[in-house]
């Protein structure tokens, strides 16, 4: 077994609202070439196995794994696909290396959301075909219900949610890969068009295209390949109730379970004080607050006030979504968690440019698979 596993190379392409100039294969290829260059590996000879993350309906292709090997340099190699979030892919690569049978595994996730002409219809097809689909729920409508319940149970205000948008979009202005950086005020966010009250349009991440590739290696290989390996201290993931009818709408216990799994691997009893910064789910602004509470950073109902007080600003005690998050970078569908992980890797390597945080040693990544799922994943990384 390989106890310790590190990320030794990262590469990405994007992130942009549309990419008419490149296909998804070209996006993947660009990211892969950069990651292999960064790790100093040749995929044909040095990578033992490959993992991609994709969902058929996002790709418009059934059994999409068919179309993954060529642009990754993985033809006639061991490769498989995880229909999950990028962090599920990272957890998979982590497990594979830990078995001791694989020394180097490459991992890919991408989004070509701009190709999907009817994305709201596609996402609505994730709902139960018998019980929910006849009711014609819009995806954002379900999110609005959850936001309403979360605010009701915790006393979180609309202003506090809007504050997340202001912070993350401002952070994105310092991220050259971010597609949706903006300098907004809280009032501008609140005065924007509503989607499903209390959820507003500005509090919902816009889609972006891009691809991310990471190279993951065993301890021995990591020291050979990289001067700045980023260690995976723990990964956790968990599902809650699949059905809308039987879930708890205010809290997200599955996310707490995922976090506890990751913390126990990392040897943390509590994230507070041990984790220097976090990149968390903010597909909808309220999710950042709800997630931070589920992860154990804040007691229920306190993430909002702490955000307003600047606790999660880049110069605060717990910087959250310094990259800009999904609200600032863009919502990358199945690649979302890996985009958050990318920022943590860059920060831990000291390569985050003008948004570099000082003296960071441990970062947390968390993601959610979106409506209507209760599927969350967490990873803890360290330099």
């Amino acid at each position, binding site marked *: 077994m390989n106890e310790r596993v590190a990320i030794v190379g990262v590469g990405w392409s994007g992130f942009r609202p549309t990419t008419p100039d490149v296909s998804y294969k070209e996006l993947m290829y660009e990211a892969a070439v950069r990651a292999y260059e960064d790790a100093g590996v040749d995929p044909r000879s040095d990578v033992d196995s490959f993992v991609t993350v994709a969902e058929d309906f996002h790709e*418009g*292709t059934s*059994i999409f794994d068919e179309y993954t*090997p060529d642009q990754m340099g993985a033809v006639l190699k061991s490769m498989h*696909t995880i229909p999950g979030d990028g962090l599920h892919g990272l957890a998979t690569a982590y497990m594979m290396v830990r078995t001791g049978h694989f020394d180097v595994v490459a991992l890919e996730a991408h989004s070509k959301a701009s190709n999907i002409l009817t994305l709201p219809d596609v996402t609505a097809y994730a709902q139960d075909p018998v019980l929910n689909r006849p009711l014609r729920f819009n995806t954002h409508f379900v999110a609005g219900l959850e936001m309403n319940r979360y605010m009701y149970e915790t006393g979180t205000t609309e202003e506090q949610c809007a504050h997340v948008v202001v912070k993350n979009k401002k952070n994105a202005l310092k991220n050259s890969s971010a597609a949706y950086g903006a300098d907004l005020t809280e009032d501008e966010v609140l005065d924007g068009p509503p989607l499903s009250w209390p959820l507003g349009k500005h509090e919902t991440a816009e889609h972006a295209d891009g691809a991310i590739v990471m190279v993951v290696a065993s301890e021995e290989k990591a020291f050979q390949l990289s001067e700045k390996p980023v260690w995976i201290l723990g990964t956790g993931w968990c*599902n*809650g109730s*699949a059905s809308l009818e039987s879930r708890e709408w205010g809290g997200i216990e599955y996310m707490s379970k995922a976090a506890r799994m990751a913390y126990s691997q990392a040897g943390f009893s509590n994230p507070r004080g041990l984790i220097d910064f976090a990149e968390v789910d903010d597909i909808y602004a309220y999710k950042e607050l709800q997630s931070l509470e589920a992860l154990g950073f804040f007691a229920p109902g306190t993430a909002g006030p702490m955000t307003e007080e600047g606790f999660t600003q880049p110069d605060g005690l717990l910087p959250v979504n310094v990259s800009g998050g999904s609200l600032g970078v863009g919502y990358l569908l199945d690649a979302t968690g890996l985009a958050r992980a990318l920022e943590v890797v860059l920060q831990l390597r000291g390569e985050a440019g003008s948004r570099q945080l000082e003296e960071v040693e441990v970062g947390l990544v968390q993601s959610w698979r979106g409506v209507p799922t209760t599927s969350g994943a967490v990873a803890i990384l360290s330099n």
Partner: protein
Amino acid sequence: MGLRKVAVVGAGMTKFVRRAQETAKELTYHAAHQALQSCELVMDDIDGVCLGTAPDSFDGVHMKGEYLSDGAGAWGKPYIRSYVGGGTGVFAPIQGWYHVASGLFDVVLVVAEEKMSSYYPHAQAAFLTIFDHTTERPLKPNLLWIFALEMNRYMHTYGISKEDIARVSVLHKRNAVDHPAALLGNPDITVEDVLNSEVLAWPVQRYDVSPVSDGAVALVLAAEHVAKRLTDKPVWIEGVGWNLDTAYWTNRDLAYPRYVEYAARMAYDMANIKEPRKEIHIVEPYDPFDYKALHHLEGLQLAERGEAAQLYIDGVAERNGDMPVCPSGGLLGVGNPIAAAGLMKVAELFWQLRGEAGARQVPGQPRRGLAQAWGDLMQVGTVVVMGR
């Protein structure tokens, strides 16, 4: 630290049927429930769940893995779905294997499900969307056509007759008579019946092909220290292998599945198998079409190229032969709910190696077996070697 050994300790499956009344969720539930019962565990004993299921388009549900999660037992548990097209059924236990071998999990539930009948009028249409959107989809190909190309190429390259290939279908459908979950067992079928069946896409005829089916299969996998506590008869996963070839299948010589060979070699290396023909006692190659069983036996290095049919002619492949092939009845006999069919093969090895296969039991207390699946655009091979 050494490598962690992983055992299969329980298995369960639903009947394979043409049109299940149960929903996809219910099918996964029934298989998972049976697998747990077989080793006297309950969901609280399960650390994580792995799901294998192929295209979302069968059910018309986006993120089908999330939809199936509660049926498969993943409520409140770590849960990841994997897929490699038709190879998924044998990949799912590989996914379970790396969960346990990583040291993060001690007991994992592996579930594979397919409900093809939801696709109306016929599941074949779902496969239109597996082809390249620019170069192939406008030609409206379907799977029968491309496999007819492959079958033709295989027959032409090695001079194999339709009669010899039909023997595969006959043996598997006869074997399936003894499988309580089988859809197409037939004790009286003959080579002539296969050759006289309706032509679908020459040289593929009705009885050369496995049926569209619904069903689910589940296994319980455990780490060594738990497995020994749970059962006196753990079946160890000794080797795993998988391999994916280029998406540009039209550039490939279809006569020989190189990707299956590479997957097999990966598994043989892990299992420390030097002479597979002597060391593998039962083989469950993937047989959605009769010629595929032959094709795969060659890729698996269990027969010389072009000579796998001889195993059937000489009786080696029969249940009491030297190397029984598909004693379960295979996809041709038991049925082909895609991912579930692959996992059914692994479950069959589990039962055979424990001596629990009932009327299907292979004589001579077999010690080691191999299951293999195949899929995508004639592109992926997945292999599991198990032993007791």
